[in-house]
């Protein structure tokens, strides 16, 4: 079976006042109807990889790839209009800063309703019911109240879940979720993950799950890609994290504070310049 997404030799760089920043340096992977995790160092290019796939790279950046293909569509050659239509319908991304990706002057509920109504012929009151049901599905208490709140009036975790609800009403075939649960307490986090899990298992959605939470990724995803300084340094079956070979990945496992361990200060990585070559 052909993969849903093929990324081959993706590069993204930014000209800045102090020189060129190479954010993504030759990233290649494929995605099927599965859960693919991306972990990696802060600043290693995870979000920029996701944005490039979505066609959301800032205009002044330089982007190149040998292949960037979604279900037979060449994303590098696609027109802006084509990409916009893909984004609205078949592929979606939950951005890392959900509260600032939502429209600040429109209530959360209205934003979900409008998304829903661009996808389906549905009456206003049915759309409202569906939106509230979706907010409840992502474990928002008191969904009726939250429906009428504006983004600045909800908590960090509520904003993340509102964004997830909005992406889910659109029913995408591929979802890129950039740190979608980083602001959620662990019990809610697991509930939201099972919502995403169902979409993969039942609707065959392809999911790219970007996270810095190694424990979570290894228990939730099928495969994990590890990024460092703009490159993929390792790919692992999720259950196989303990056998990681790259010293960055090995180091990561060691420097997490865990309940019951008492290590002050925490061990830190001794980053070698050759890791970033």
């Amino acid at each position: 079976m052909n993969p849903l997404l093929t990324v081959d030799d993706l590069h993204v760089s930014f000209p800045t006042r102090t020189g060129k920043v190479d954010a993504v340096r030759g990233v290649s992977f494929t995605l099927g109807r599965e859960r693919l995790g991306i972990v990696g160092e802060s600043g290693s290019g995870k979000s920029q990889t996701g944005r490039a796939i979505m066609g959301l790279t800032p205009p002044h950046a330089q982007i190149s790839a040998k292949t960037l293909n979604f279900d037979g569509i060449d994303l590098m050659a696609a027109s802006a209009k084509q990409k916009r239509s893909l984004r609205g319908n078949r592929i979606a991304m939950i951005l890392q800063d959900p509260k600032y990706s939502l429209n600040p002057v429109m209530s959360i509920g209205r934003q979900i309703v409008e998304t829903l109504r661009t996808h389906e012929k549905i009456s206003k009151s049915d759309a409202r019911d569906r939106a509230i049901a979706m907010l409840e599905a992502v474990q928002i208490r008191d969904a009726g109240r939250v429906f009428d709140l504006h983004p600045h009036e909800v908590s960090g975790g509520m904003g993340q879940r509102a964004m997830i609800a909005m992406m889910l009403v659109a029913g995408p075939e591929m979802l890129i979720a950039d740190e979608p649960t980083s602001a959620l307490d662990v019990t809610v986090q697991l509930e939201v993950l099972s919502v995403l899990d169902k979409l993969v298992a039942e609707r065959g959605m392809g999911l790219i799950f970007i996270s810095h939470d190694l424990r979570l990724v290894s228990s939730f995803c099928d495969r994990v890609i590890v990024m460092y300084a703009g490159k993929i340094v390792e790919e692992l079956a999720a259950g196989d994290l303990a056998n990681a070979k790259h010293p960055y990945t090995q180091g990561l496992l060691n420097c997490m504070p865990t309940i019951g361990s008492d290590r002050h200060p925490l061990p830190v990585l001794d980053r070698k310049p050759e890791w970033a070559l």
Partner: protein
Amino acid sequence: MTSAISVENLVVTYDDFLALNDVSISVEAGESYGLVGESGSGKSTLLRAIAGLAPVSDGQIVIGGKTLPRRKRDKAFYRQVQMVFQDPYGSLHPRQTIDRLLQEPLAIHGVPDAENRIVRALDEVGLGPSFRFRYAHQLSGGQRQRIAIARALIVEPSVLLLDEPTSALDASVQAEVLNLLEQIRRDRKLTFIMVSHDLGVVTHMCQRLAVMKNGRVVERLTAPDLVAGRISEAYTQNLMVASKGFVRKEAVSG
């Protein structure tokens, strides 16, 4: 020992929604105090209320023996008490350079020696001098979070309110930031209140913590109690179980 921060029967309402319902905590000088709890339970609201950024309708906040006025605080307060916000996107102006962002609090509080302080602050959070003249919107999520921490530390406050300060960081950078925070707290005798949903982080950083749910504190316990499972609330127990990771429920065939 005197408490550095004492929150007594605090109530915060938005229209008729009770965001904080009779909340009390007391934090000793030099202590690091943890807040955990459900999303939407009022953790950020509590920190914002202490910082003078939430509509308090009842109760009081005492810092260093002084009862704070509900809304307006004096300039010394804004230097003494610094907050690192949950979303670094919102708290850092995207069109300002990092240099400007770090310069600004120093200028407001008339702190001398800006040049050296800025260089040191960037270095402390693991960002080299090449980041100094970038704009906030040119940084990754975790890089912004570290700038927000640098900005709070640069004016040498005595109280630091930390709202999920490492939630956007990978474990390697998180370890460095947590070590930095611990060292600074020890060296400068800072008092912390720290929100985190990661129980590993909270028990590592804090001696005592409060568990919040629905605008209330439902349980107060010490970190060793939590670690040893001496827990009385079912909700806290659930948090402990959920911390172990995702468990896929086997699909029921049929």
